[in-house]
């Protein structure tokens, strides 16, 4: 079989058009900047029906040109995707092939956006996100990777080959190379230096990233919240001590900390496991206090709820911290699962370095919110401090926390990439993006594709998260 070109037969028609519209977009964008500097601020005209419109004239013209060339670029990009999904192999090339593999993702994205836009007036802040272009782009990028990870991890749909299998003859093949064996007939994005399919490794890598990053961030938030609320609420000595500890951790070089935590000698002492024991307690403490403070006046109901929530949580907790290969091994038969080698360490390190920052944000918000009258009202009716912290203060701090959560998932993703790049934590053959970039780095000048593809993947996810956070922040401030 012939190797695939990037855009196949479709490209013969679309490529020149695409090039022209890109150039048109750049030129019109540059022009409109020049024009807006040269001409006075445009007057906005109010139409009788209550709408407003920019006045015509030179600025209006360049703005129009810019808008239409942008539409052209988007339209042609869509044509690549749709064309690829329906045309034959040679008709749509590599892009088409990938587009066809990703059909479940496209369908899910379109469905999600259709439902969300239709109901955007009734879904609060989430709905408002769909008024912001930046937010929508960010959300689309993030959900693209979430869906990709979901279909790859749970249904085995998107990957074309096994991410770990090496096939002789495919070593360092360029993108679009035909596959010599049974199965999917191409290595869409080529092979790496161990002759594994780059496309399959990237989508499999997304599973690891999409699972660990949000979860680790969530735990960091739990720890930060459980410590930040009392620090801000009580103030005084407690605040001084906790803030000092947080500063201490923040001042410690992160990479050095990671190196220390994953060094075999340190791991043998069980230090990361002990830290896990402490850090993973935070969600349990959080849930227990949350329920008890709310239902303390109705003890019977409180006990039932505590039992329902805490028993599974504690079991999960014990299973997570219990691992035969570490000094903490006491559970025996009822141990539900063991976390794969190194993942726990990575998790612990990420939580450990992220939680001080969250702590400081929560503490600051608490200091502000605790001066409100509704907090005083809760105090004067004799509420416990933890009720006030968790039910009166925390819900009203949610806006900034949600935005920071999105940003922090991005940082965590980069951190995971960094860890993978240094070969820390995860096993060397793991398809996660950091390790893959590190693998591809050695032959970068001859075969760039094995490193560039996961790098672009990492970039797009983090960019998406940052845009999403921007959109959320912007929309939560607007009315």
């Amino acid at each position, binding site marked *: 079989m012939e190797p695939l070109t990037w855009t196949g037969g479709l490209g013969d028609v679309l490529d020149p058009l695409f090039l022209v519209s890109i150039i048109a977009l750049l030129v019109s964008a540059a022009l409109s900047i020049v024009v807006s500097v040269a001409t006075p601020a445009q007057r906005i005209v109010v139409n009788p029906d209550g709408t407003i419109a920019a006045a015509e004239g030179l600025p209006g013209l360049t703005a129009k040109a810019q808008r239409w060339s942008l539409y052209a670029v988007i339209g042609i990009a869509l044509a690549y995707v749709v064309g690829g999904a329906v045309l034959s192999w040679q008709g749509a090339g590599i892009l088409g092939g990938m587009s066809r593999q990703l059909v479940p993702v496209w369908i899910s994205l379109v469905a999600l956006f259709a439902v969300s836009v239709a109901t955007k007036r009734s879904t609060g802040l989430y709905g408002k996100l769909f008024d912001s272009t930046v937010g929508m782009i960010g959300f689309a990028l993030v959900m693209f990777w979430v869906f990709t990870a979901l279909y790859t991890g749970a249904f085995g749909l998107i990957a074309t080959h096994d991410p770990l299998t090496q096939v002789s003859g495919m070593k360092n093949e360029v993108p679009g190379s035909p596959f010599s064996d049974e199965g999917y007939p191409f290595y869409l994005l080529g092979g790496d230096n161990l002759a594994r399919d780059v496309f399959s490794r990237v989508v499999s890598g997304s599973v690891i990233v999409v699972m660990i990053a949000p979860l680790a961030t969530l735990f960091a938030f739990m720890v930060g919240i459980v410590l930040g609320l009392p620090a801000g609420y009580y103030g005084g000595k407690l605040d001084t001590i906790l803030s000092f500890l947080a500063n201490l951790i923040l001042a410690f070089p992160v990479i050095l900390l990671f190196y220390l935590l994953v060094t075999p000698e340190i791991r043998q002492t069980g230090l990361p496991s002990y830290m896990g024991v402490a850090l993973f307690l935070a969600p349990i403490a959080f849930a227990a206090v949350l329920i008890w403070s709310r239902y303390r*006046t109705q003890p019977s109901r409180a006990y039932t709820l505590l039992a329902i929530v805490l028993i599974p949580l504690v079991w999960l907790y014990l299973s997570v911290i219990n691992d035969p290969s570490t000094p903490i091994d006491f559970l025996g038969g009822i141990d539900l699962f063991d976390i794969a080698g190194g993942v726990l360490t990575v998790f612990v390190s990420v939580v450990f370095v992220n939680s001080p920052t969250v702590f400081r944000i929560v503490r600051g918000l608490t200091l502000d919110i605790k001066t409100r009258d509704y907090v005083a009202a809760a105090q004067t009716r004799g509420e416990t401090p933890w009720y006030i912290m968790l039910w009166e203060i925390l819900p*009203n701090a949610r806006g900034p926390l949600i935005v920071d959560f999105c940003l922090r998932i991005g940082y965590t993703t980069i951190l995971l990439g960094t860890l993978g790049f240094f070969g820390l934590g995860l096993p060397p053959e793991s398809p996660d993006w950091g390790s893959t970039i590190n693998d591809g780095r050695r032959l970068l000048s001859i075969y760039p594709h094995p490193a560039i593809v996961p790098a672009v993947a990492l970039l797009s996810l983090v960019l998406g998260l940052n845009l999403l956070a921007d959109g959320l922040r912007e929309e939560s401030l607007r009315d």
Partner: protein
Amino acid sequence: MKQNPDYAGPILEIEDLSISFFTRLREIPAVMDFSVTVQPGEAVGLVGESGCGKSTVALGVMQDLGVNGRVVGGTIKFKGRDLAEMSPSELRDIRGNEIAMIYQEPMASLNPAMKVGKQLMEVPMLHDDVSEKEAYDMALQTVTDVKLPDPARILESYPHQLSGGQQQRIVIAMALMSKPALLILDEPTTALDVTVEAGIVQLVKELGTKYGTSMLFISHNLGLVLETCDRICVMYSGEAVEDGRIADVFDKMRHPYTQALFRSIPLPGADKTARPLVAIRGNFPLPHERPPGCNFGPRCDYFEAGRCDARPIPMEDVEPGHHSRCLRWDEIDWAAPPEATETPPPNPPGDPVLKVSNLKKYYQVAANALFGGGEERVVKANETLDFEARESETLAIVGESGCGKSTLAKMLMGLETATDGTIVMGNEEIQSKPIEERGPGQVSQIQMVFQNPFDTLNPSMTVGRQIIRALEVFDYGANDAERRERMLQLLDLVKLPREFAGRMPRQLSGGQKQRVGIARAFAGDAKIVVADEPVSALDVSVQAAVTDLLMEIQREQKTTLLFISHDLSIVRYLADRVMVMYLGHVVELGTTDEVFAPPYHPYTEALLSAVPIADTKVAKKHIVLDGDIPSAMNPPPGCPFQTRCRWKSEVPGGLCEKEVPPMRTFGAHQIKCHLSDEQLARMEPVIQIAAE
């Protein structure tokens, strides 16, 4: 440089101005068909409730409506020139130079990182290109003009080193630096204490005369406008509803809204049993839900269906210079008294439920919070408080910020424990029992209503949930159903529809939120309710309704109401007894009639004089206090009020500076003052209602 200095016409002409804000959902008209003219040297008051568009007008004049706001019709002419046709650089030239604006919050208008002198000098250096030396001289002169002590030192200080009143004087000085033709004051005294406010108001009046500046005075306070302005324009829901000379509008009002507004504010002569306030029914319409025809129609007593709601109402001439936006202004009998409402007589005060004797609260403030140590300072927040409150009695606690009323409330609630003295509630001493040690019964006995309606409810919990939570904490009811039923009854009690149980606080207006706050306080059948300025943050028309509600519940439940306020008008209206506090001391205590009639404590006298009264028939003595309230950290020796007292010279031997005066008793009336009996007897009443 000033534009056409020889211009003689009106300074500001606003004609048929309409301003809209554009949101993602719709256009929101904020101001519609608004016209006003300001002549040179004239002060025009712009009065209305929050959301009526009065500040939007001011921003329109400054051409500073933000990205969403647009002038969609009409013109604003400044000295005959249309502001909309000016270029940005021409506008920059006018702002701060010919039109100056003073905002509500002085600290927000000053740069905290720059010395006051530098900020003042910037104005002429920017607009008039003068040398630094000249600018400094001008700054010194203006600071002297706004009557700040030690001008040279003030110029060298940073804004945070000045008190709120001093900051506002600096803002005024900055506005006057360029000798503007028009001064816009947007609620310039709302953030200040009454006695400080009185000083600022007097200053603004004097400066207006001295510099010949025209003024656009925006306020919600009719009394303040009466004291400062020549003409008044009343706004309602984006429209001017009535304008004219002060005397015309105050005494011969020709619009139902203006009339309703005057009937809802407590003027001298109002009485909670004989002549109760009349609240305006209904709610202020949202800008996008305005009714057809007359905006005030749905709340108007004179509404005529088919006529008032048929088409937009034009502004009509009542007499030259007096306009009203009412179709029926010449049909209504304006002299008719309000319909008398049946008010049951108040309960006679019962047994004392709360006894406070010799109560003291001192705070220890360590100089160094991190490691302790250092010099410890003592803040005397409360000094020897002695009073009692009886069942179904309203005891008003009056004082300005820093007088210790909040500390007293905290001690009553159990959020702080007393340093010395006793608080007896029922038969139990609670002064050293923090709230954690009080049982649910005791906690629910004494509850609080808070000042700021926008802050009193948790924004992320439904109204019903918040009331039910209070019931849960007070151990009310055996199950959820009972508590829910009780919650609905409480909503009935505060006259809110039962559907509100499922609403979020942001869907409620300020008055409605305050009602929920009251329902929450009464959830456990409170015997004593501490109301901390419960209506001061509400609009006047809503104040009356909330006040009436509080009194009605009090009548039904025989509650003791401790009403904390700085607004003497409302205190006079609803209180049975009044306690005046200054710097942690009770300076005067007596029945309402006793406190509001001579002999006064000198502070009460000044306080009474400072409160603006919206009645042209009232003659008031002008007593303006110098300086600010001293810090509680560093109180003056002897009498706490001696630094500002105008009677101090009458006491021989400098006694005021040496000793805290004793509590003098005249029957139940107590005054803490060194003045002799004859001197006290010589005092004249501050407020006199002219004979009709």
